[in-house]
């Protein structure tokens, strides 16, 4: 038997061919990315342009539906001259503070409750029915209760944000604990882990991808809780800004506040994703481990 091998003379030319193929694949990928970005921008410009054109030609009534330039003016006014209830940054700060405190309390509570009930069959069977009932109550309505009970200050908004966040995080933490791999738990047990060590080193890490996924969703809920709470009655905050604009039939103000909230949510979403990638660096690729 003779081992066949490619002759040495063909090797450099083949390497060159591979290099050029790689190069052109890279160029193609870059072009495709540029195309997507261009199309996205184009779509935005066309949408805003048509909106602006529509209001200019009176096809769309700017009084009800605002206009891009009107919204821009409104945001600029708020930045330079402040809002009717004080500087814009202060409104943002108040809303963010309520959101964060509510999010933190709700998330920590949800994680702890999820782990305890996930690890204890009896507690889970006893409580599950009540949690289902509590979860099916439209929780935004509780905002009114909190405002009556806790007043117009921060506490009522935080309470609403907590309630919004808690159930989402709880449900995910509970599921994550339940889905923890049996072989992995048995392995830890035989390697010598105590029940507490199993919870700390196996259950919590394996529930982590579920919990972090729920934090994405629930941060949005915390923001909704804070804004709705302010909407229902407050002295400060973005929700109050919307409600004041609504009272004055100022569509520009409503849209402007909405866009500011969206930007806030996007920035924080980005930060949560960064944290998630850091905590879950053991995963093959972000999100691929989810639900398994």
């Amino acid at each position, binding site marked *: 038997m003779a081992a066949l091998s490619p002759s040495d003379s063909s090797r450099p030319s083949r390497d060159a061919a591979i290099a050029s193929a790689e190069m052109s694949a890279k160029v193609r990928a870059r072009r495709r990315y540029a195309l997507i970005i261009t199309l996205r921008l184009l779509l935005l410009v066309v949408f805003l342009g048509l909106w602006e054109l529509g209001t200019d030609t009176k096809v769309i009534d700017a009084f009800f539906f605002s206009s891009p330039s009107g919204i821009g003016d409104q945001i600029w006014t708020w930045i330079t001259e402040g809002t009717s209830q004080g500087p814009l940054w202060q409104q943002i700060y108040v809303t963010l503070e309520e959101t964060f405190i509510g999010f933190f309390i709700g998330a920590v509570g949800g994680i702890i409750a999820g782990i305890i009930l996930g690890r204890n069959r009896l507690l889970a069977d006893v409580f599950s029915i009540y949690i289902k009932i509590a979860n099916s109550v439209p929780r935004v309505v509780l905002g009114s209760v909190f405002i009556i009970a806790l007043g117009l200050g921060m506490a009522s908004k935080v309470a609403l944000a907590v309630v919004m966040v808690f159930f989402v995080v709880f449900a995910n933490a509970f599921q994550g604990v339940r889905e923890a791999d049996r072989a992995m738990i048995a*392995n830890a047990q035989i390697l*010598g882990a105590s029940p507490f060590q199993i919870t700390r080193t196996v259950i919590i*890490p394996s529930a982590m991808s579920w919990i972090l996924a729920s934090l994405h969703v629930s941060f949005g809920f915390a923001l909704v809780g804070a804004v709705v709470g302010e909407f229902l009655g407050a002295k400060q905050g973005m929700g109050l800004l919307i409600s004041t604009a609504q009272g004055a039939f100022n569509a520009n103000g409503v849209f402007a506040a909405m866009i500011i909230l969206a930007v806030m949510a996007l920035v924080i979403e980005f930060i949560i994703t960064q944290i998630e990638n850091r905590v879950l660096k*053991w995963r093959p690729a972000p999100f691929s481990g989810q639900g398994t």
Partner: protein
Amino acid sequence: MNVQTVATRKVSPDVSAKDAAIAIDDVTLRFTTPDGNMMTALRDFTMTVAQGEFACVVGPTGCGKSTTLNLVTGLLKPTTGQVRVMGNPVTSISRDIGFVFQADALFPWRSVIDNVAAGPLYRGEPKKEAYERARDWIARVGLARFEKHYPHQLSGGMRKRVALAQTFINQPKILLMDEPFSALDIQTRTLMQDELLTLWSELKSSVVFVTHDLEEAIALADKVYVLTAGPGTVKSVYQIDLPRPRVMADIRYDTKFVEIARVIWDDLRQEVQLGQRRTLETGQ
């Protein structure tokens, strides 16, 4: 002992040796299935593994092979009969036991070294010593360059090496293995079998190795237990008198090996066929 023409001979299962590392004595195990039916997993099951002995358990699918291992760990309690490990009745998970699983049971969020150090750390060994020993064991399974890797960055064979190191670092006197290499390709499997025999010969543990691969069982074992189609009970026990150390890649072509395989396979085949027929008839 005389030189035998056939390297295998049937032996009686209940060699009631005083120094047996594992003694499963006339155990019957019944489950209640979720729909309320009684199911017998094992019936009148007797098995002894002497200290330092390598025992393999083969049998048709679903005959309760893995159940025997869970009896030894104490995760399952026998309905009747008794299980003793190192002479003492099994009450809880013994510190002398190591278990290698069929599935990947490594912790995916821990690096290789953290995985291997897990056992000693769980058992309260100081961090420094635990990591020192972990480094040593990782080197012994040939993964010194991969200490900081995560399991998902390793191949199936490398993950199995980590699993072996993770188990062996606790220096178990009893080693239980549940089809540990069944998910590996045949070349990797041969390498891992050699690796296992090397580690085992250093540690002198008593091994119960469950497999559906008869050739694997003969190549590794001192003693092969053939189980009947469920409910599982011992059909026959064979002593494998192949010389050690054995080289996995070559032993399959040994004439003695082929002869033994033929004898045991004749025995096993009936059970496999019976088990298959039963599955097809009952649809379970």
